[in-house]
């Protein structure tokens, strides 16, 4: 990775849609110049009194990650927004965030220099916790004003966590919680999660926060 082209920035596009639409997103994006992407399955949350009473608060979602050069990313997300109608409720969300370096993609091979999104209203809060605690994270976040999140099943281990059961090596199951929040409430939400799950203590999980440059389809409380 040597070609350092001044002023060329790379964006990571992240699209969260209902299950079954992931491939369509990827296809559309590729049509508009994005080279490829990765799709995985997650769970979203729902807010509805009746559904909550019926215990139906999980929805399967597909998450698509795609990296592209800024201008390509922008037009791709723009078109995706039009085609998938992210502006309507329950049609999914899309956001992009600046990344500093990409390795392994033949077509985008540059190191980015200036990383400043135009719209830095939002942050992505990523929390990784032991399996089963994701609901608690979302609950804590909602208490602090978040409007929902997406849960992704994962595995992983900290320094003192690998172990062996019978003859299979295991890695503990984890859950990743992805929450988008606007600038003002980010700290409050992170703090609330931290407090209720005691992330500060060793072995309880980690939180990191990433700036997001553009968002589509986010639920805004003031709209309703």
């Amino acid at each position: 990775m040597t070609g350092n082209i001044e002023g060329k920035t790379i964006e990571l596009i992240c699209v969260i849609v209902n299950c079954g639409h992931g491939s369509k997103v990827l296809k559309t994006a590729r049509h508009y110049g994005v080279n490829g992407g990765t799709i995985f399955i997650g769970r979203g949350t729902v807010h509805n009194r009746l559904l909550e009473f019926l215990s139906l608060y999980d929805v399967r979602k597909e998450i698509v990650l795609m990296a592209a050069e800024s201008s390509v990313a922008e037009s791709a997300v723009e078109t995706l927004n039009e085609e998938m109608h992210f502006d309507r409720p329950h049609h999914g969300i899309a956001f992009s965030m600046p990344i500093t370096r990409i390795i392994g993609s033949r077509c985008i091979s540059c190191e980015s220099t200036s990383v400043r999104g135009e719209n830095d209203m939002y942050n992505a809060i990523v929390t990784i916790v032991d399996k089963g605690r994701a609901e608690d994270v979302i609950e804590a976040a909602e208490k602090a004003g978040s409007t929902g999140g997406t849960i992704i099943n994962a595995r992983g281990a900290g320094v003192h966590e690998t172990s062996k059961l019978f003859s299979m090596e295991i890695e503990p199951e984890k859950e990743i919680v992805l929450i988008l929040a606007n600038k003002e409430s980010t700290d409050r939400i992170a703090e609330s999660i931290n407090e209720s799950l005691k992330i500060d203590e060793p072995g309880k999980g980690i939180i990191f926060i990433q700036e997001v440059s553009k968002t589509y389809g986010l639920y805004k409380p003031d709209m309703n």
Partner: protein
Amino acid sequence: MCLNVLLDKFKEVLISVLPITVIVLILNFTLVPLGIPTLVRFLAGALLVAVGLTIFLIGVDLGITPVGKLMGTSLAKTNKIWIVVVSGVILGFFISIAEPDLHILAGQVDSVTNGIVSKWMLVAVVSVGIALLLAAGLMRIVMNIPLYKTLTMFYLIIFVLAFFSSPVFLAIAFDASGATTGALTVPFVLALAIGISALKKDSKASEKDSFGLVGIISAGAIMSVLAMSIIKRTDEISGTLDSSQYFTDSVIAPFLNILPDMARDSVIALLPMLVLFIIFQVISFRLNRKHFRAITMGFVYTFIGLTLFLTGVNAGFMDVGTIVGYGIAARGNTLLTVCIGFLLGVVTILAEPAVYVLTHQIEDVTSGYVNRKLVMSALAIGIGTAVAMSMLRIIIPGIKLWHYLLPGYIISIILSFFTPKLFVGIAFDSGGVASGPMTATFILAFAQGVADAIEGADVLADGFGMISMVAMTPLIALQILGLIYKAKSHKGGLTDDGKY
């Protein structure tokens, strides 16, 4: 505002129930007029099936699957082999003994053998087989023994046993294995395997070990019944089965008559899982209230959904199957009968509950790499072929069941050495999955209708063996799909990074 979660599911289910409805409607207006009352009953049945299936699937997602996964995980975490084995035996025994389909089959066997093989004996024998092999299957996952080796070993034992037992028992044994892997057992056992495998560090092993447990327990039922037949030495079945079919003009009465029975069946089938869940909750899970409530609700949905589904199928679909089968076969056109059989096989499997659960699990575990629709299509073609071949068997007396089963299983076992291992598991699981309540009622009724219309065909003897065919063809169909996947998944221009 967002009941669309429910609506989405309902739409999905509707799409899978629609084909069978359309086919029967077309047949009604062309080849086999059903008569208004039966037709109305069928449509009402189809609606009940769609609604029931929707609720059932939501319930499984919410209740059965999480419980299975949690149990699998917590069993593995004990790190004590005796706990895994003992729990496997207990789980397997109680789940199998509570399976309504098994009781129906055992009742039939009881009456045709004039009580030599009594109902409870067969149920007990099958349950013991399931129990032992569930324990063996769990052990296989934790000990990292490859699935195809395990299956080869079990099927070799089956071949040897089959060699010594009578052909009639061969049919009963294979049918019993299809019957035990019903609508509830399959999701639970699948989840159990996924719960253990999800812990594995090697994500490819984790993916492929998530499947295959249903296939292993199916082998258990076959083995135990064959072993029993050798010990008991009963060669002939002579009795007759009093056909409980009644034709009535009433539309609502059959549904109401059957509802309490179906509700009871559903409760009995759910009971062991519920009891085990509560025991585990106290000693090991300790879920928080929200989670506990969700699972309990899941059980309630599963109960409601299963009851509605079974009522719809039994009251609405059963006579239609018989009438269509009789009507088609009475025309004396072999090709037509075989073709219609194929078509009905294809559309019936789409509405089978466990197929739904399996294909969703596959997508979950492989993150969508193995496409649901492809698995569904392969399954549908497999089942279609199974039904078509069974029609041939009924029409042509020379063809015996083992003429199909023996080569079929030999091919499956040989394929399992070459197929990507993920697909071996999926294929052997779907064998058990395909033989659910929908096939067991509608397709079986259809086959009996056909046998009824054909001189020289024995309604009963030809009826047995139907489920075994349905359980066998998916093994081949899905392994072939796996081979196609393997051939196609080499990326152009890049080196194959060894998905398998």
